[in-house]
């Protein structure tokens, strides 16, 4: 089932092109949006979340057009959004904050609203922190609270802008488990810099660069791009696109085969780096 369809989406800030004729369809499951800073990920997510109107193109969420004022409210009923900087009120308790967002999501009946607040607190494992003020929560807990507000009302589309940034490994694991559960029956679209997140969570990955979609496929297909182009050698190579020394003391190279190097199994990161290298080269050539 297609939840979101985007056609020819464009957005620019003055002379800077943030989105350049983006075409995309997103279905149930977890889709990762990967790309470097300034690739247009956040702009795309903000347009989908109705926080920003695009300059060109169309968006359909569940068949509804957010550009039409009358349909926009209905689109918002179907969306849960966690922005990169959610700005959660520091002096609110976790419970108060969710109660407030629940009112914004049209839950006017107090009993129903409280039940929903309890449900999402439980879902993000913050039930015992309900009375803690936001400013006293750890970074990971604050991020989970941000996710909880996005889940209020059980939206069919959950949009998460870099949800795992700044989290320690334990919190990241917890977050991944949460997102993975969400993706079982909802459409989850998350942006990230982390190829590990994509490998661990996403059934599908969309890579953006310079406001354009440069790859759309499975994480495995992204890794396959680097098939036959990843090498391990004992000496540093010369003239290749990218290389680094790994924990075993070998040089991992992406590009042409260095002298005496052996082929290595490509990872998602290898594919991503190779793809971005090509995208940047194409961008410069344009």
């Amino acid at each position, binding site marked *: 089932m297609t939840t979101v369809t985007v056609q020819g989406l464009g957005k620019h800030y003055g002379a800077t092109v943030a989105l350049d004729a983006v075409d995309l369809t997103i279905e149930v499951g977890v889709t990762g949006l990967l790309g470097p800073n300034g690739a247009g990920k956040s702009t795309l997510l903000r347009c989908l979340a109705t926080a920003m109107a695009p300059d060109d193109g169309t968006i359909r969420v569940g068949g509804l057009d957010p550009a039409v004022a009358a349909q926009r409210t209905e689109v918002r009923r179907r969306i849960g959004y966690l922005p990169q900087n959610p*700005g959660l009120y520091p002096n609110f308790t976790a419970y108060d904050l969710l109660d407030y967002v629940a009112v914004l999501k049209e839950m006017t009946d107090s009993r129903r609203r409280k039940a929903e607040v309890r449900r999402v607190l439980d879902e993000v494992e913050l039930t015992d922190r309900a009375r803690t003020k936001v400013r006293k929560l750890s970074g990971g807990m604050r991020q989970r609270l941000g996710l909880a507000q996005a889940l209020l009302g059980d939206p069919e589309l959950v949009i998460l802008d870099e949800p795992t940034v700044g989290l320690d490994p334990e919190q990241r694991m917890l977050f991944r488990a949460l997102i993975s559960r969400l993706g079982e029956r909802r459409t989850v679209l998350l942006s990230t810099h982390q190829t590990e997140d994509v490998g661990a969570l996403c059934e599908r990955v969309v890579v953006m660069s310079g406001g354009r979609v440069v790859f759309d496929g499975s994480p495995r297909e992204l890794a396959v791009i680097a098939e036959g182009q990843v090498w391990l050698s004992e000496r540093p190579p010369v003239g290749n696109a990218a290389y680094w020394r790994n924990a075993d003391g070998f040089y991992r190279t992406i590009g042409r085969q260095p002298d005496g190097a052996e082929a290595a199994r490509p990872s998602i990161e290898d594919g991503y780096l190779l793809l971005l290298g090509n995208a940047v080269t194409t961008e410069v050539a344009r």
Partner: protein
Amino acid sequence: MTTDWHLDPGLIEQYETGALEPSRIMAVEAHLLACADCRALIPADDAWLADSWSAVYDDIHAPPVSPIQRLLARAGLPEHRFRLLTATPALRWSWLLATAAVLMLAVAAARFSGDGTLLIGQAFLMAAPILPVTAVSGAYGPPADPMHEITGTTPAAGPALVLWRAVSVIGVAVLMATVAAVLLPGPGWYAAAWLLPALLLCTGTLALATVVSLPTAAAVLGGLWVTGVLAAVGTSQEQVVASMFGPTAQLAYLLSAALAAAVLILRRRRFDLGESR
């Protein structure tokens, strides 16, 4: 935890059917607290138990009902509407206390300055309309509201939320400034003369906010008012007061405010953050 002796089936049945005397109920319940085996024999209504725990959880964690909320509830304001207003940046205690402090200082200065008390009253009259406009600028959207990006993508976002918040902050600011105006020296009409200019600046700010952001709109109109006041400083203060707050000026403020309100109603959908400005 369990004990060496247990409730007999007859006693359990009497307890379940409510046939026991209060003293025996207390004894049975004291035993049940200490004995998991006997507790397991008492059938529990799981749905009722879950509801009870939920109610207890909500009672502990839900925000308490404040005296102001009780007062507003009596005046007919629904509970969920109060929740929306509590998050209005310009209704936070820090903002309210700062405003109250400035007004108290103005009153104190006028009361204790001896000569020139009328001058302070007139200066207040000219500055007072800015107060509600400042409050409106902190009612909605960036940069006043750090959660604006979440707020703006919820179904409640849009004209209704902006107007509810604006009306509430204007109400509070006008109430505080009216109290200060009554306490200040000067003719009795001073206490009300600033209200129509304030109304015009507020409706004008909201109407202009359908084109630019709310803080920008407030800054533009507030700035125009201050510029007008400063431009008139060269002339006699009495003349300024007469020209800016006389009957003709008041009628002009009223008509302009009505015009701004009409523009606001016609363009209200532009308050949606999803639309380009």
